[in-house]
């Protein structure tokens, strides 16, 4: 047992698999991954970048415990979080605490329709064919990079979701990952297989709950298979403490007419290295990525997105907005790749960053690789500070400068928040964003949320004067910032 308490090694991989009582094929998969990990150099980033990729390479992996199983189920913090969870009605629930899944629930009706929601450890035993076919093969292959190989060698717990043909799940499924052991590593895996014509909304939350300064490490992988005409919406709320480092690799594979949405909200973690992909392999498939981040103190993010068009008539849109303050640093690399056979493709990417302090730094590198000739693709990136004239305008209306800044930041985020499909997640994001800015009042975000939602719901007053008759563009105009 001692071999599995500190550091990464081949022996630790073998011990982990033995403890879990895994079949031989999974042990072999882990050992293969270990070999890939050993033989793959750590990515070090580009010359002259902000150094985040290199920082992850230099993390002291030998100081962490790669397997912290939990026997007592939910902590008081998790219990409370579930009561206040942003998804109040849900079709299913999975809670992972460190290396162990401690709770799984699934609506009985869905179970009777053949939906499978379980931890991945159980799926290895109960659905070996599906796991062998889909687990780190085609979507996020073991060999993708050094960290995916590390993940494949040490994964534990995890979510396995299978939606049979034609089953549409309306209420969201909530997955929570909790890290409450210092100096630990968690390798959480989410595998979603949405069969033909099925649909699901999945909400993933990453939280941590420990105060120890010894950092922990979360290396997670999310794999989404959207089969023909399936729809998958995946919302991710990352609110880890500043003593957690996070490396994440997420990808969605699209078959014909499939559509997926990534909603990625990154607020926490000390260092965050993210690779987010959309593999558009089926004719007519559609991918959307909406990203929001807010960094402060000495947080460092490095975010890489890839819209990979490999089939005819595919569409992708990536929209990322972020705010930086204090000494935080964020790198964003957004790539649009259109393969030669992917004609009639449309792909758009935009990344807008607002800097609130003089010490923070942001770097944005959009990229295009176009191999087809019948393509509509564009990208745009802006980085800037709050406009002094806008501030003056708000101040002349009685609003003090710090709050005026908060209002402008909220306005900056609003267009992407409008794209967040889950109302509760939207509200929680608004609150988190306001709270991140110093000096806010307790009710400030709620006032804003209430007003916003209420005006939207109640609409216009019937006694109101209509001067020019109804206009064509009466919906809320939220122009790009």
């Amino acid at each position: 047992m001692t071999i599995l308490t500190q550091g990464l090694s081949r022996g630790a991989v073998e011990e982990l698999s033995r403890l879990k009582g895994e079949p031989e094929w999974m042990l072999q998969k882990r050992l293969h991954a270990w070999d890939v990990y050993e033989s793959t150099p750590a990515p070090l980033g580009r010359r002259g970048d902000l150094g985040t990729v290199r920082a992850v390479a230099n993390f002291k992996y030998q100081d962490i415990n790669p397997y912290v199983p939990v026997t007592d189920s939910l902590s008081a913090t998790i219990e409370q979080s579930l009561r206040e969870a942003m998804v109040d009605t849900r079709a299913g629930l999975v809670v992972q605490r460190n290396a162990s899944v401690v709770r799984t629930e699934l609506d009985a009706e869905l179970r009777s329709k053949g939906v499978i929601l379980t931890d991945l450890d159980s799926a290895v035993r109960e659905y070996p064919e599906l796991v062998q076919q889909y687990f780190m093969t085609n979507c996020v292959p073991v060999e993708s990079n050094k960290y995916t190989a590390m993940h494949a060698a040490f994964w534990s717990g995890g979510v396995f979701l299978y939606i049979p043909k034609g089953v549409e799940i309306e209420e969201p499924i909530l997955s929570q990952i909790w890290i409450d052991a210092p100096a630990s590593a968690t390798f959480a895996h989410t595998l979603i297989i949405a069969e033909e014509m099925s649909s699901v909304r999945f909400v993933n939350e990453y939280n941590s709950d420990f105060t120890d300064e010894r950092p922990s490490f979360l290396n997670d992988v999310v794999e989404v298979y959207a089969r023909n005409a399936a729809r998958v919406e995946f919302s991710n709320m990352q609110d880890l403490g500043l003593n957690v480092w996070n490396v994440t690799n997420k990808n969605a594979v699209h078959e014909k007419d499939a559509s997926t949405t990534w909603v990625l909200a990154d607020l926490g973690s000390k260092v965050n290295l993210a690779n987010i992909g959309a593999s558009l392999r089926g004719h007519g498939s559609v991918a959307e990525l909406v990203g929001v981040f807010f960094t402060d103190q000495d947080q460092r993010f490095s975010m890489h997105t890839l819209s990979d068009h490999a089939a005819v008539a595919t569409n992708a849109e990536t929209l990322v907005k972020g705010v930086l303050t204090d000494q935080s640093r964020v790198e964003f690399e957004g790539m649009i790749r259109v393969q030669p056979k992917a004609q009639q493709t449309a792909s758009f990417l935009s990344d807008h960053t607002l800097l609130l302090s003089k010490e923070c730094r942001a770097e944005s590198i959009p990229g295009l690789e176009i191999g087809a000739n019948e393509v509509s693709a564009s990208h745009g990136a802006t980085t800037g500070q709050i406009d002094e004239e806008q501030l003056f305008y708000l101040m002349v209306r009685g609003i003090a400068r710090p709050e005026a800044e908060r209002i402008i930041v909220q306005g900056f985020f609003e267009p992407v928040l409008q794209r967040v499909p889950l109302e509760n997640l939207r509200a929680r994001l608004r609150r988190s964003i306001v709270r991140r800015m110093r000096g806010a009042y307790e009710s400030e975000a709620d006032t804003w949320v209430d007003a916003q939602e209420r005006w939207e719901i109640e609409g216009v007053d019937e006694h109101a004067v209509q001067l020019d008759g109804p206009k064509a563009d009466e919906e809320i105009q939220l122009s790009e910032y």
Partner: protein
Amino acid sequence: MVSELIIKNLHANIEGKPILRGVDLVVKQGEVHALMGPNGSGKSTLANVIMGNPKYEVTDGEIWFKGENILEYSPDRRARMRLFLAFQYPMSIPGVSVANFLRRSLEAVREGNKPIAEGEQPSGKMGKRKSIPPREFRTLLQEKMRLLKVDNSFINRSINDGFSGGEKKRAEILQMALLEPEIALMDETDSGLDIDALKIVSESVNALTGPNLGILLITHYQRMLNYITPDFVHVMFNGRIVKSGGKELAFELEEKGYEWLKPADEENEVGVNG
């Protein structure tokens, strides 16, 4: 007691260049003053300096409002004392709806003449503050919108974002109606408006005038004064008020232009925009 805005010997620079060069002016609640003058004479600068725009540096003189020297006050505190500026070029703020913004603005202005503390205490505890219930606010806003015949679609749009010139000016007047200032500075409110829009905006201003509102109407055309009758007319030239009179002065300007008022010692100086 009638509120007074008193400007004494005001000098101000932008980027080291002097724009205001000794302005003296008194505007009282209930009075309508027109401030006229050619482009670049310093009219807009005066409005911005009165509100405390940090772009400008006050090098000499005083601004008194309600018996307090407000020169050191932040723009938001001046607004909470019920000074108002209708901008010549209102800023658009994407993603912030007119409704939410106006509600916050009204809450802030109702806090009155004091510095506003931040909500979060050094302990990290967040404070609470008074807010106006959405329903009460909506009733009030809709009353003002009816008074000014403003289209309801305004409220859910982002502030000035994609607004036409006329819509922006009307949104400014709506804000003025809601915030109930004691002295309002209206900077070129007539510029960029066609004749119909000018009429609507002027009627809106007339609907708001009364014993509680003093107005300083900045314009370089006489045409708005066809609709709004000023009690006093001042002419500004190269950073100073060179002539003051009653409403007949406006007609005289219309007839003769500004040249005859140009001080002899400033023949060769070129005005600066603002």
